[in-house]
């Protein structure tokens, strides 16, 4: 046997719809048994990447191998090895949860008894046994997402694509989903996860790629990415918009939020920089209500590496 190839390996993936370039040369390498997160805002190309890697959409350029199979040459072998759950994947709302599961078992050509066993086990595991005989249309968002993942697991996929699995879920359902994903990885499955939530990527992913405008603008572990942004920031809160405006003019750096009346100023929070900052504000008699110090998190990384106006300001420090 050859050494196991990576679960996902992509080079130069590109895709355009008409004039609009959605993916502009994406390289990915996801080792087996790991969670890889694609992080980015709406329209960054996350879903398109998943659609290409799961054989739904053909790439305009580039090559990719998923579970060792070439995407273009052996799409049916890729399909046999993957599972997809996400924004564009779905359950059949007109039939019950149990019937949805039986449908998947039949399509995977499981023998009737085995299909029943697998179905019952998965419904139990995802806490859906009580609702198994109800139409999926009556399920809550969290239940439907759990059914969606349970259906994906009927075929015992090696690689699972989860496209924004927690978007629109309440906090409890989100944490349940996170535990489900951790359990999947503990079973040796490879997960490619897309998310808009930095916390989610930080919690779950071994490696993170930040996607912006169809390009990967940063990639690494959560810690590596955080190291890209030296220091953190200080958040100043004001009671009066006029004070905020004066402070913003005076400091000429940072991210201003007129609704929350806050100003985020880059800085590592050391006594020295804090004193210097407050001296400047005191000197101009700007009244600050409160001050909090933030060590760098993925939000800072995200703002630093994606194409935003504040990027220049962060760099200028």
């Amino acid at each position, binding site marked *: 046997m050859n050494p196991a190839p990576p679960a996902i390996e992509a080079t130069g993936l590109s895709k355009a*719809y008409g004039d609009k370039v959605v993916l502009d040369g994406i390289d990915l390498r996801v080792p087996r048994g790991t969670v890889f997160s694609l992080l980015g805002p709406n329209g960054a190309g996350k879903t398109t990447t998943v*659609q290409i890697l*799961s*054989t*739904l*959409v*053909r790439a305009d350029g580039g090559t990719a191998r998923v579970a060792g199979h070439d995407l273009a040459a052996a799409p*049916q*072998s890729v*399909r*046999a090895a*993957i*599972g*997809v759950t996400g924004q*564009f*994947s*779905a*359950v*059949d*709302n*007109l*039939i019950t949860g149990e*019937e949805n599961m039986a*449908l998947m078992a*039949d*399509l*995977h*050509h499981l023998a009737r008894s085995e299909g029943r066993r697998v179905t019952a086990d998965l419904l139990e595991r995802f806490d859906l046994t009580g609702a198994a005989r109800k*139409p999926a249309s009556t399920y809550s968002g969290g239940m439907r997402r759990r059914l969606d993942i349970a*259906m994906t697991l009927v*075929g015992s996929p090696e690689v699972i694509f989860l496209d924004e699995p927690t978007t629109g879920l309440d906090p409890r359902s989100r944490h349940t989903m996170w535990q489900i994903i951790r359990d999947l990885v503990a079973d040796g499955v490879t997960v490619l996860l897309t998310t808009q939530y930095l916390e989610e990527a930080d919690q779950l992913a071994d490696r993170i790629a930040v996607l912006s405008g169809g390009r990967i603008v940063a990639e690494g572990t959560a810690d590596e990415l955080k190291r890209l942004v030296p220091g953190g920031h200080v958040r100043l809160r004001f009671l009066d918009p006029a004070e905020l405006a004066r402070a913003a003019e005076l400091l000429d750096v940072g991210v201003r939020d007129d609704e929350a009346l806050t100003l985020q100023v880059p800085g590592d929070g050391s006594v020295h920089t804090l004193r210097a900052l407050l001296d400047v504000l005191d000197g101009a008699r700007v009244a600050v209500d409160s001050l909090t110090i933030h060590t760098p998190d993925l939000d800072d990384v995200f703002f630093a590496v994606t194409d935003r106006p504040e990027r220049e300001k962060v760099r200028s420090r």
Partner: protein
Amino acid sequence: MTTAAPPAAAHLRDSLTMLRRNLLHARRYPSMTLQVALIPVFLLLLFVYVFGSALGTGIGQGGDRTAYLSYLVPGMLLMTAGVGAVPTAVAVCMDRTEGIVARFRTMAISRASILVGHVVGSVIQTVFTLVLLITVAFAIGFRPDASPLEWLAACGLLVLFVFALTWLSVALGLISRTPEGASNAPMPISFLLPFVSSTFVPVGSMPSWIRWFAEYQPFTTIVETVRGLLTGTGIGDNAWMALAWCVGIAFLGFVWSLRLFDRESR
């Protein structure tokens, strides 16, 4: 592994799974099927009992209500097939908008099975509504003098027509953006074509510019063939034109559906 099954067997197995799914939908939500089945029955009763006497005189040969019933039933069978196109287009469109087809596309299954399941399921449902219509027709006095062989030929042609229309409505379902749009798309087939044909009145009674169209369009040729087989009126060239229309529509619908289905999403 799922890919180990021989292709033909896998196609058949997946198609049967998809067929079961479609019939399950119809059983769970019978209102659409029922509505579609009742429209032609309602029209049959309306035309026979309200307009029947007057129209019976119009078709000539000293016709009365009973004669008009016998004239009308073959056409109503076609109309039933036409109305049956609506739920097919809606079901296909709903599948697409709900994203379940996207899930199927990422699975190592027979892709054709998704469409085949719809087509076979719809043909079964429409045949069911045809049987209902014939039953009602018999109950109100329809007594054709066809031999078993003529019955067989008429049924065969009807099923072929249903099959052809179903492929066309699959394509209409695939190009429609919303289920509402999909339910309107087959309207010209369900309602317009039957009225501009020999379904309700002989084309000979129409002005010449409409007659030219009415005479050769699929509904008239098939209605005349079925009418000839069941009630012994003249068939003439209509038989081969009917067959040509059925095969042509089926082929067009099939090729169009496959092209739409294979087209990349978005």
